[in-house]
C-alpha cells in the first residue's frame, strides 16, 4: 500500500507532539489516521483475495458434484505419500511449516511495535526461511506429479490402471489442484518478496513504535496466505 514513503508533495507531517515523522503523508491529519486508513485498505484488499480464491473453491465444488467418483479416486491418489501409504506427508509438513511461520510473523510485528530492531529482523528472516521450506516441499511434490503425468488438461498423461487418461474428471481435478495450490504458491512467492523488503527496511532502522505500518500490513497478508492453505489442505488431502 502507499504508506511506505513520504509523499512527494509532502509538507512534512507533524504528529501531536509537534515531532516530525518522515513517514507522515500530507493528506492525513495524524499518523493514527494514516495507520487506520492503511489497515482498512489492506483488509479490503484481503477481501478481494478471498473472493479470488472463492471463485476457484466454488468451481472445484461444482466440478466435484459433476464427477464425484473421479474426484474421490483422485483424492485417494493425492493422499498417498511416496511409498503409497495413505498419509499426506508433504501436505502435513507444509501445514505445520506455515503455521509456525504465522507465529514468527506475529513475533516480528510485535518486535517492530516494541522498537526491537534486531529481533524484528531475526523473526522476519525466519519467516522467509519457513516460506522457502514450504516452496521447496511444494517443488518436490509437484515434481512427483509431473513425473506421474498427473497434469492439467491436455498435459494429462497418467499411465496406470487407476485415473485412466481420457475419462472426464481426472484432468479437471488436477487442473484445479495446480491452479489453487499454484495461485497460493504465487502468493507465498510474493510474500517472500514483501518480507525481504521489510528485512531491508528493518535493518535500515525504518520501523519503530511510531511507525510500523508496513510490517503490520504484510503480517495481515501473510496470515491470509496461511489461512487459505488451511482451507486448501483438507480440501485436497483430507476429504475422502
Amino acid at each position: 500500500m502507499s504508506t511506505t514513503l513520504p509523499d512527494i508533495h509532502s509538507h512534512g507531517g507533524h504528529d501531536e507532539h509537534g515531532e516530525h515523522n518522515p513517514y507522515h503523508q500530507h493528506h492525513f491529519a495524524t499518523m493514527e489516521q494514516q495507520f487506520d486508513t492503511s489497515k482498512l485498505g489492506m483488509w479490503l484488499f484481503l477481501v478481494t483475495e478471498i473472493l479470488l480464491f472463492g471463485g476457484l473453491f466454488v468451481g472445484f465444488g461444482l466440478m466435484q458434484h459433476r464427477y464425484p467418483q473421479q474426484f474421490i479416486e483422485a483424492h485417494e491418489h493425492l493422499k498417498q505419500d511416496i511409498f503409497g501409504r495413505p498419509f499426506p506427508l508433504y501436505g502435513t509438513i507444509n501445514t505445520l511449516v506455515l503455521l509456525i511461520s504465522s507465529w514468527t510473523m506475529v513475533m516480528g510485528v510485535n518486535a517492530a511495535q516494541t522498537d526491537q530492531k534486531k529481533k524484528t529482523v531475526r523473526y522476519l528472516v525466519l519467516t522467509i526461511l519457513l516460506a522457502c521450506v514450504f516452496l521447496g516441499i511444494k517443488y518436490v511434490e509437484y515434481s512427483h506429479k509431473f513425473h506421474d503425468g498427473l497434469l492439467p488438461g491436455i498435459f494429462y498423461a497418467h499411465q496406470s490402471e487407476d485415473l485412466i487418461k481420457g475419462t472426464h474428471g481426472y484432468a479437471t481435478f488436477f487442473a484445479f489442484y495446480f491452479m489453487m495450490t499454484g495461485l497460493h504458491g504465487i502468493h507465498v512467492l510474493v510474500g517472500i518478496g514483501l518480507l525481504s523488503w521489510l528485512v531491508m527496511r528493518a535493518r535500515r532502522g525504518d520501523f519503530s513504535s511510531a511507525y510500523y505500518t508496513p510490517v503490520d500490513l504484510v503480517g495481515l497478508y501473510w496470515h491470509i496466505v496461511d489461512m487459505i492453505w488451511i482451507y486448501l489442505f483438507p480440501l485436497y488431502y483430507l476429504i475422502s
Partner: protein
Amino acid sequence: MERAVTSGARIGDRPRPKKNYLNETRGFKSWALTVDHKRIGIMYLVGTLCAFLLGGIFALLVRLTLLTPAHKIFGLQVTAETYNRFFTLHGAVMVFLFIIPSIPGSLTNFVLPLMLGAKDVAFPRLNLASFYLWIVGAVMAVSSMIIGAVDTGWTFYTPYSTTTSGTVTLMTAAVFVLGFSSIFTGLNFIATVHKLRAPGMGWFDMPLFVWGMYSTALIQVLATPVLGITLVLLMLERVFQIGIFDSRIGGDPVLFQHFFWFYSHPAVYIMILPGMAIISELIPTFSRKTIFGYRAIAYASVSLALVSFIVWGHHMFVAGQSQLATVVFSALTFLVAIPSGVKVFNWLCTMYQGNISLETPMLYAISFLMLFAIGGLTGIFLGTLSTDVHLTDTYFVVAHFHYVMMGSTVTAFIGGLYYWWPKMTGRMYSEKWGQVSAVIWFIGFNATFLPQFILGSRGMPRRYYNYLDQFQPLHVFSTVGSWIIGLSLFMSAAVLLASLRKPADAPDNPWGGTTLEWQTSSPPITHNFEDQPVLENEPYDYRPKAVTH
C-alpha cells in the same frame, strides 16, 4: 448570480490564486508521476474519452452495416465476420474501457476528495497505479484488435469463446488487468470515504454523489475478483483445455454464464450507480432546493449495490437453469425496481416547486430522468419470465440496456462533465451551444433506440448480421439516429474544447452549489483548500438565510 454557502468558509469574489493544480508544476513528468487525484482524474478523463471515441466509431460502423440488407458501407462489402468483430469491439471497449472506469476514474477521482473536504484520496499512489493498469489493459485490448480479432461479443460466452480462433486470450487478459484497475479505484474510494471526511462530516452529511460512489466502490471491490478468476479459468480452458467450461472435454458452458454474470450483473450497477450519483447533485443544484428524501436516496444506493449480487440468474432464463431458479431470480429481479423507483420519485419531488433553471447540466439531468424511466420500466418486461422468453436475445434487450447504460449513465456523465467542467478547468463554456447539444442528444438517442424496441418485439434477434426486408425502415431510422448522437457528441466536444482557448473566467461557484467542491477556487489549488474545511450545516441547504449575493 446567487451563491449559496453551507459552511462558514468565505467564498465571495476573492482573487483567483496564481498557482493551481494545473500550473503548479509543468512538464510531462509532473503529470506522468503525479499522485494528485485531480490530475489523475484529468488523465482518466482523457483516456476514457478516447475509448469512448473508439467504441463510438465501432457503434457507427455497426449501425452503418445494418443500414441496408446488402451490408455495404460506402460501397465496401462488410462480411458477417467483420460485423461480428464490430459489435464485439463496440461492446468490449464501451463496457470495459469506457463506462466502468469513466465516472469513477475521471469525475469521481476529481470531485470526491473535494466533496469530503480531503486533500487527496486515501492511497494516492495506488490511484496512479490504477490509472496505469487501465493504460496497460487498454493497450492489450487494442492490440488484440490489431493482431487478430475478437468476435465473441463482450460476454465471451463459452463454448464459442473457447473454440473460436480469434485473440480471445489476449482480450480476456486485458479485461483481467482492467478489473484490477477497477478494484484499486474502488478500494481507494471506500477507504477515503471511511477515513478522510472533513471534521464534522458524519455519514449523513456526505453529498449523495459520495453515497452513490461508495456503493459503486463496494461492488467494484466485491464483484470484480470473481470476474478475474473467471477470466483466468477461461484463458486456461483455451490454452490447456482443463475441462471446466467446454462440454466436449467434460466442462459445463452454463457454469461460465453463472460465473460471468455473478460479476457482470453487479458490473451493470457499477455503470448505473455513478450516473445516479451525478443526478443526485444536478437536480438539487439546478432546482435550488434541498434534496427530497436524502436518507431514502442514500439507502437506495446501498440497497441497489446489495441487490445487484442476487439477480444474476435473470441473464440465463433460457440458458437451461432449473425452473425453480428462474422463478426465484425473476422475483428477486423485481426488487431492483424498488430502490430505483425510490430514487426517481425523490428526484422528481426535489424538482417539484423548485426554482428550476435549465442550464446545460440540468437539461442532461432531465433527459436522464426520462431515459432512465424508459430503460428501467422495460427492464421489468425482461425480468418477467413470460415476456422474457419471447424477448430474450432480441433488439428489445439491446434497446433496454442502451437506455440504461447510455441513455442514463452516459447522459449523466456528460451532464456531470458540463457541471464540473468550470471547476476542473477554470473555464465557462458556451451555455447556448451546450444546451443545443443536450437537446440534440435527447432527440438522437431516442431516434436510435426507440425503433429497436419495436424491432425486438417483432422478433429481430440481436447480434444478427442478416435481417428480413420488413425490418429495414426501422433499421434506417435507428442508423440515422446514431448520426444525430454523433453530431451531439461532436458538438459537446467542440463546446468544451473551445472554452479552453480563452483565459480562466469561471467563478468559484458558478451554479450556486452547496457541496464543498464549490468552496475552493476554480481550478482548485494543489492541496484543494486553503484551510481545512469544517462542515457545519446539513448537505443541500438552500434555505434563504444561507444565500449571499
